[in-house]
């Protein structure tokens, strides 16, 4: 369990993390979501005692990180894939970590096997691809068989097979009763793995909710219908008491069942060109939630200045 209380980090005038209070509980995967620059990594560094909070407190099972005597068997963390010396082999990288925490040497081979790097154990880490580096980082996190696991953007650089693997790994780790805390800027990724969701934007807490709640609250489901007999279908649906929204060339039936609409259309011999249940994406919901707090906007909406004809205004100064 990780408890944050009023955690704040300021760099000069800039507030990176602003008064965060939430709890990461054992037995579930907690997703930590926020756009780039929201303060996710800073928060995680403070949890690990790497950065000192300006104010507030973060405790691991009731203790500050630097009071842990055997930190790697308590909490395993993947911060960034390249937090290792490139000239050292994967085996030696894990060995020096194991030794620093009195973890038996045999664990090194075990975790290398778990992440599938046994074949390249003696190879230097600098020759590793981003995905392999990520796996080595995960091996380091698993080394102490810890009760708490923390992954910062673990799917970055992984191929689809690797992403699938890490999803299952996180779920099984949580299933064993461990606390799993994973950050991401991809809502779609979290929707597949996380049971609980903590959303931050510009360092502030925006949501702390269960995934199911978030989905229920934020996803609009509707049925999209396309028909050449638009007016007739509208009449029929109105008579049946179904609300319809027109959107472009199609009709959107809120909360309707595709089967029911299809049967209704058949009864009245209306031709349908499309009848598809739709779900508004969680990505959209997430973007709405964090819209005001996105730090680095890509300015696609700024009006493009019209190029002026050549020579115009040459005599004005």
């Amino acid at each position, binding site marked *: *369990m990780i*408890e944050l209380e009023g955690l704040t980090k300021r760099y000069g005038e800039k507030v990176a993390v602003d008064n965060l*209070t*939430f*709890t990461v*509980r*054992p*037995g579930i995967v907690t997703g930590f979501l926020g756009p780039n620059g929201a303060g996710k990594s800073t928060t995680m*560094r403070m949890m*690990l*005692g*790497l*950065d*000192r909070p300006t104010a507030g407190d973060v405790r691991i*099972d*009731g*203790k500050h*990180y*630097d*009071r*842990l*005597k*055997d*930190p*790697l*068997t308590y909490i395993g*963390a993947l*911060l*960034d894939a*390249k*937090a*290792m*010396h*490139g*000239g*050292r*082999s994967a085996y030696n990288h894990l*060995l*020096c*970590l194991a*030794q*620093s*925490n*009195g*973890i038996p040497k045999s*664990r090194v081979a075990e975790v290398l096997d778990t992440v599938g790097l046994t074949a390249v154990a003696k190879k230097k880490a600098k020759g590793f691809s981003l995905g392999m580096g990520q796996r080595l980082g995960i091996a*380091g996190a698993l080394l*102490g*068989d*810890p*009760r*708490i696991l923390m992954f910062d953007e673990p799917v970055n650089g992984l191929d689809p097979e690797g992403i699938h693997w890490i999803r299952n790994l996180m779920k099984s780790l949580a299933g*064993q*009763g*461990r*606390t799993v805390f994973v950050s991401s800027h991809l809502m779609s990724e979290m929707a597949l793995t996380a049971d*609980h969701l903590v959303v931050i934007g510009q360092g502030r*807490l925006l*949501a*702390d909710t269960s995934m199911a709640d978030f989905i229920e609250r934020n996803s609009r489901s509707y049925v999209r219908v396309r028909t050449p007999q638009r007016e007739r279908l509208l009449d029929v649906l109105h008579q049946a008491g179904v609300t319809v929204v027109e959107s472009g060339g199609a009709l959107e039936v809120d909360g309707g069942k595709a089967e029911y609409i299809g049967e209704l259309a058949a009864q009245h011999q209306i031709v349908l060109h499309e009848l598809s249940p739709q779900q508004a994406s969680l990505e959209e919901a997430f973007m709405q939630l964090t819209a005001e707090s996105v730090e680095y906007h890509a300015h696609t909406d700024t009006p493009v200045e019209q190029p002026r004809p050549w020579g115009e205004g040459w005599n004005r100064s």
Partner: protein
Amino acid sequence: MSTPQPPMPQAAAPDWQGAVAGSPYGGYTSPIPVVRTHLGHAIASEWTKIRSVRSTMWTLGVFLVLVVGIGLLVAALVEANASEGSLASDNPLSFGVFGLLLGSICIITLGVLTTASEYGTGMIRTTMTACPSRSRVLAAKAIVFFAVAFSVTFVSVLLVALADVSILSGAKSPSTQEWLKGTLGISLYVALLGLLSLVLGSVIRHSAGAITIMIGLVLAPLVLALFMFSESLSGLRDALFNYSIPSQMSVFYTTSLTNDGPTGWDPLWIALGVTAAAFAGAVWLLRQRDV
């Protein structure tokens, strides 16, 4: 906004590390035995680190070549050009200083890399996560590095000393005190110089920067003193000469070079004092700063 928190134990929490099974926080219990870590673990870890990177082999390899190679070369040159009886008052060990002067740059480089390279690669975050006690990390690095630097220096210096004594048949045979200073003393001094570099690497956190500063520290006083022609600067010039690192190194081979300046074992005590102060400062900084 926040989820309801489960009740926290109000009483002072017992040491639940030992009783994981009954942890009030629940969750997973690992079959791996829990170990209370101490400095020994950190030292074992740092030993693995220092021996598993190629820069260690490179710097120490070049060091050996410079110290032994130049030491033997100088001895051979001196012996070939010496006239009868001209070496009678010379300490034969003193011809090892040239190789060691150049070799100390390798020890400086290795010292800086031991700490600063972790900041360059990002490894430091992994290290500090594995061992949250920052002073323990620096102490372990210092102990391992000092042991390695001292052993390698001592072995190569001893090798050169023995060779010099046997090659330079015309020179006097060194006294016990001269043997001690010319082998043990100078090796401790060079290892301390490396340790100072390690500490500086931890403060500067940048390999190239720290190496440059250290090499400047070794060479600058001597170079500056060379160009102080003015009589009014003579006091400063003499101090720079006497306390420059190369002349302090030569103190280990001679009874006295000048009337003032460090003599005997003084350079070692100076280096010890400076390094200890720098170490304390580095630990303080390490505790203040974010990793």
